[in-house]
Each structure stands twice: as C-alpha cells, then as structure tokens.
C-alpha cells in the first residue's frame, strides 16, 4: 500500500513533468507538423515549449531542464553533439557566469555599509528623499553591476532602516514596502541601461552577432537606452510614494541608528579600495575593450583578478554561485540559436505577422507592439533573462530594424513588475517576507504604464535622432 502512496505522491509532485512528456511525445509521434515547417524546426519548437512548461512549473531542478534541452537536440536529430556543445558555451554564457561570480565577490567586500552612509549623506532624513535616493542609487548602480548585486547590497540597508523605524515592520507596512520596492524597481529600471546591467542584454547582443544582424558597443547601448533609465527614476519615486504611503515622514531616529551601526566599520580599508578599483577596471574593460574581447571574457578577467588579489576565496564563489542557472542559460541560448538555424523562429514570426497584420496596418507598430507585449507578458511568468533567450530569435525575425526591435525586447524584459519571479531584485525583496504578492500588483501596473510610455517616447523621439 505504501508503495502506491509513494507512487501517487511522486505523480502529485511531478505532474507537470508528466504533462510535458505526454505533450512532447504526442506532438512528436502523433501530430503531423505544418507543411511549411521542416521537421527539425518542429522538433526545436517541441523542445522549447516542453522546457517552458518545466521552467514555469519547476517539477525538476533547473540543471535537469538544461540537460534535457541539450540531449533532446541531439536525440531528435536537430544537430550533432559537437554543434550543440559549441552553441552551449558562448560569450553571453561567459558573461552570466562572470557576473554571478562578480556579484559574490563584490557583495562579500562589505561595501554596502559605505553605500548606506553615502546614500544617507545625499538624502538626509526625510522619507521621500530616502526613497528617492534608494531608487536613484539602485537604478544607476544596477545599470553597471547588475540588479541582483545591487539588491543584495541594498537590502540590508533598507531592512535596517525599517527595523530601526519600528520593531514591528507590520506597523510600518507602507514605509517597508516603499523602501523595499525602491530597491527592487530602482534596480529593475536601471538594469536596462547598459549591457552589463543584466544577462538578458548580453543575450540579445549575442543573438545580434550570431544572426549576423550587427554589433552594438557598450557606449552605443547606453546612448540608446540610458535616457529612459534617467527619465523613469523620478516617476518611479512618485509611484512608490503614491502607492505605499509611508507612515513616517521623517526617519530621524532610524537614520541616526543606522549611521552609528555602519560607522563601526571604520575607515575604508585597503581591500575595499582594491575591490572598487578592480571593478572600475572591469567597467572600463567593458566600455573600451568589449568589442574586441567580449563582455563575458572581461567579466571573467574581473573574477580572475578578484581571486588573484585574494579578495574572494574560490570556495566562497563556488558555494554562492548559482551554477544551475548558468547551465540553463547555456542550454536556452543553444536552443534559441537552433530556432533560428532551423527556421522555427521565422515560422512563428511569419505566423504572428500574417495573423495580426489584419488588425494592425503599420508593420513598425506591429513589430514593436508584438515584441514588447510578448516579452513583457512572458517576463512576468518566466524570468527576464530566460524570456529574452526564448523570445529573442522570434522577435528578431519579425522584420523591421532588428537592432531597434532587439533594444525594445531587452527593455520590455525588464517590465516584470507584476510578480516576484520576473526579476532577481523582485524575488529578493519578496524573500524578506515583508512584502506580499498583491503589493507587486498594486505598484506593478503603474510601473508598467510608466515603462511602456517611456519606451514609446524613446522609440518615437530619441531613436530617430540616433539612427
């Protein structure tokens, strides 16, 4: 009897794996592919849709899903093992690997205490100014060092202020939400600003190169997108203060206690200066050398330097780096490239255009709205970077200016304001247990309206000046 219970329980836990398998097997063996879709493209679509089911429902660990995507490409005869392996590892994956390790190296330096002092010096004690400071600093920092790094460093500062404002955070729920969301949404709006702001930006750059669209330098990316980051900061602050209405106008006591706490760290130490200098070198490498060496290689050089100077131990990097995510992105990019190579992405793009062109006359509006809507919606269900890996090849085949469509897609992948799963910064604040899912909805729709309007403004008024 117990064996039956165990089997039933396994089925309960793995039902989405079974659904994905039944779905995939049925499509492969019993459904005739559309006449205009070649068998390899059809199988690539089966793999990617099965992977999406598994990623969203999580019946398996991410590395298992990555391995599934890799071996299925070979088993279904889409490509040879060697080709799949070569697509699996590229500069975008190097970048994701490097940036995850750099995050560990930077966070472990304790620079967050310096950051806290710096912010307080800038903002003073008024709540609205602190929320504004958190949003602006999170956005600007995240645009260079990635949102997960910034959120990891800013969270202690935010939570310490909350703790000092009131021992029971439930009594200052508005203040708590305003501070934590200023970190999360600040980091999210900032993450689009430069290629190093998020893995998804580098994935898009990688697709441009792989698909022969062209290359965009670090500074060019900033030129196209950074104005939107700066434009959104003040409006984000207004949205947060309007939505969450902090209970205290002034955080005098909390700020004083915070200053006392961080002052214990003493003067900036040599190793902290070294950590800052090394990151500055990496940054300049990204700006001036990435076209020759690749963003990923430069990130790995940074990791090497942090290890060589003894600023971080390998054991720490090894323990705190999410290797499963790296595997998954490698696999997702490889299947993304196969979607392009086999014509699967083009087939979906054609289908979208032929169906929607009856509704929307202008090809430019159609391409832009499809890429933004598809990416924005999927980001809220999946994750921003995974969305770009999957959707990228399709939207680039929609036609029009592929660079601008790519920019729009990378930007829209940061529109995951509605749920805790889309962006790492949102997941991080949710893990504090102090903000609820409905808080994301309350502020998220306003942020989505702001971001869509900002993107529209950028596309209509700024990009034409640059092209």
């Amino acid at each position, binding site marked *: *009897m*117990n064996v*039956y*219970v165990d089997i*039933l*329980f396994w089925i*309960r*836990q793995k039902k989405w794996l079974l659904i994905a398998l039944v779905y995939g097997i049925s499509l492969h063996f019993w459904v005739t592919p559309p006449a205009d879709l070649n068998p390899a493209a059809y199988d690539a679509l089966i793999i990617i849709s099965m992977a999406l089911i598994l*990623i969203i429902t*999580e019946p398996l*660990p*991410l590395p298992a899903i990555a391995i599934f995507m890799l071996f299925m490409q070979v088993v279904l005869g889409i490509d040879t093992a060697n080709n799949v392996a070569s697509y699996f590892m590229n500069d975008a994956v190097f970048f994701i690997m490097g940036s*995850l390790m750099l*995050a*560990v190296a930077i*966070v*472990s330096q*304790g620079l*967050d205490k310096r950051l806290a002092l710096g912010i307080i010096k800038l903002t003073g004690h008024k709540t609205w100014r602190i929320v504004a400071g958190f949003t602006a600093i999170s956005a600007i920092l995240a645009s260079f060092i990635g949102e*997960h790094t910034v*959120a*990891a*460093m800013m*969270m*202690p500062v935010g*939570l*310490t202020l909350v*703790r000092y404002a009131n021992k029971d955070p*439930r009594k200052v729920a508005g203040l708590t939400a305003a501070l934590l969301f200023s970190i999360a949404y600040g980091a999210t709006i900032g993450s689009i600003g430069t290629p190093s702001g998020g893995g998804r930006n580098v994935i898009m750059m990688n697709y441009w190169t792989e698909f022969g669209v062209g290359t965009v330098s670090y500074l060019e990316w900033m030129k196209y997108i950074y104005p939107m980051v700066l434009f959104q900061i003040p409006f984000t602050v207004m949205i947060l203060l309007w939505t969450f209405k902090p209970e205290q106008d002034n955080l005098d006591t909390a700020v004083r206690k915070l200053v006392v*706490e961080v002052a214990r760290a003493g003067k900036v130490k040599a190793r902290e200066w070294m950590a800052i200098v090394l990151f500055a070198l990496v940054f300049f490498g990204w700006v001036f050398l990435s076209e020759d060496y690749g963003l990923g290689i430069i990130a790995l050089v940074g990791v090497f330097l942090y290890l060589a100077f003894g600023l971080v131990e390998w054991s720490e990097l090894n323990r*705190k*780096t*999410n290797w*499963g*995510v790296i595997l*998954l992105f490698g696999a997702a990019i490889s299947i993304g490239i196969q979607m392009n190579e086999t014509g699967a992405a083009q087939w979906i793009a054609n289908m979208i255009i032929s169906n929607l062109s009856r509704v929307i006359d202008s090809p430019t509006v159609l391409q832009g709205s499809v890429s933004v809507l598809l990416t924005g919606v999927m980001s809220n269900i999946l*994750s921003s*970077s*995974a969305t770009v890996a999957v959707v990228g090849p399709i939207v680039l085949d929609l036609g029009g200016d592929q660079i601008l469509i790519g920019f729009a897609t990378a930007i829209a992948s940061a529109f995951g304001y509605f749920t*805790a*799963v889309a*962006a*790492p910064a949102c*997941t*991080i604040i*949710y*893990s*504090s*247990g*102090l903000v609820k899912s409905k808080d994301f909805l309350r502020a998220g729709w306003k942020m989505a309206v702001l971001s869509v309007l900002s993107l529209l403004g950028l596309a209509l008024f700024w990009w034409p000046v640059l092209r």
Partner: protein
Amino acid sequence: MINPEALRFLTAVSSSEYSGPTLKMGSLIASVFDAHLGVVYVGDKANEFHGGAVNLTRHNLENWDIIHPGLEVLKWALGELKRFNPNNAGLARIQFNADHIFEEDGRIKVILPEEKGCRVELILREGDLVDQMRKEIQLEGYDLAIIGGSQNKQHLAHSIIQYLPSSIFVLQKFSPQKQYKLLLLVDDSDATQKSIEWGALIAKKLGWPVKTLTVSKTKLFGPGYQGAADMAKTYFESRDIEVEQFFISGDPVTTFVDFAGDDHMIIMGASTLNPIKQLLFGSKPIKTLARTGVPILIVR
C-alpha cells in the same frame, strides 16, 4: 502498539500572526503526553532562477544581524513555547541563537542546547507544505502531525490525509478550555485498533468521556462491526475509562458529522482503501474532515 513513553509530535507554523493558536495547542498536547515536539516552519521557496541571488542576499543580511524570516518565526515560536510552559525549567534556560544552525537533508535545523526536560526541535524548510512535512515526518519518524484548521481546508485536506505518513490531528476551532467528548469511530478496519489505543490515551490523560460510534449503511451490523465495537468497549473498560456505545444506520460521513455536532473531538482510523480509489473518490476521513468543524484525529 503506541509507546506512550516515546511519542514524537510535529506542528507546522507559518507566521507569528497566524500560527499562535496552532502552536499553543501543539504545545499543550505535547505537554499532556510528555511528547517530543518538533516545530517546523515551511516557507515559500524562491524561484530557482533567482535562488542564488536570494541566498547571496541572505548571507549578506547575516552580516547585518538580520536573520532569515523563517528563523524569526522559529525564534518567536520558542518564546511562545516558554510562555505556554512556565514550569519547564529546561525550556526556560534555552536561548535562541540564529548562528547555531545546521543545514542537512534540505532543511535547516536550529541547534538547541541539551537541557533536561526540554524536548523541542526547531526546523526550517522551504517549499510545498505537504511535501516538506512528509519529508520531515519520514526523516524524524513523528507519530503525530498537528495542523491548524486551514482556510484552504478543502484543497489541503485530501493531500494531508493521503500523503502524510503519520497520524494527523487537525485543530479545527479547538479550545483548550472546552470539555470535549471523544467520539471514536469504530468499524472492522485494521486502523480501528490503533484508533482505540489513541482514544484511550487521550481519554485517560484529559479525563474526557468516550463514545464509540459504529455506522452501517444497512440496518444490519455484521459480526465484524459488532466485534470491533465490543473490542473497543473492553479495551476502555479495562483501563477504567467510561464508554458509551452507539450503533446507527445511515450514510457514514453524514452520521459522523451530525453526531459530532460541535462538542466532540473525532478520532477515526485512516482509510484502508486503495490509494488510487482514495485519490479518485475520496475516503471517509477526507470527506469527514472536509465537512466537520470539530477537531479531528486521523490515526495511521
């Protein structure tokens, strides 16, 4: 046979806001039986994509003396247990230390100093409630899981009863001040014997009167039903526990629920039906839990 000297109970808590009553009852029941009490916090698991970023943040938060929200709940739970058991000197001496934790088997265990009389364990887990409680029960061999009356009762009742491998006590509107009567449901199934043992243990410890109820769908009560009811009566009387017998014809679940009203605590055996049939059609315990508002102990 139940070994009353080595009982191990497990209770789940989710927050200081909502779990107070469940913890209080868990503590009371454990102290009445002098049982070991495991308190498990089962929190949301971060989406795997960003799990690394969340862990990195948590490590960093430790440098600021900000602990995992689950550990905060367990710290609160320990404080509450001390408050509920003011005479337990061993428990009173124990201090919560968030640095003294040990990660093993996919859970975090708070290491508490050995103190005589203190039989408490604090565990943090993340993920699906039923899955995590099942793992905890399998790992530590708990006899009884104590669960609050959940708002998602209908949804959870099925999974909890079907998959938790221990006896389950669901505290629905359970009040320690109230004088309950034990309603022991007796039939010819294998689980009846263990239900009788639990019933006798509770009746003896709490001094509650016992009623045994045997329900047949027909007017006839076969030798199996009659024999089980007689066995129960003999068992209770041999332990000087007052017992009344009732035999009623009708739909079992409706009869249990109507008979229990709001002043009984139900004890019934877990279903011996094929698990697949239970999944498809439900079982008496699953249906009874879904329909009754009184505390219910399902014995496995």
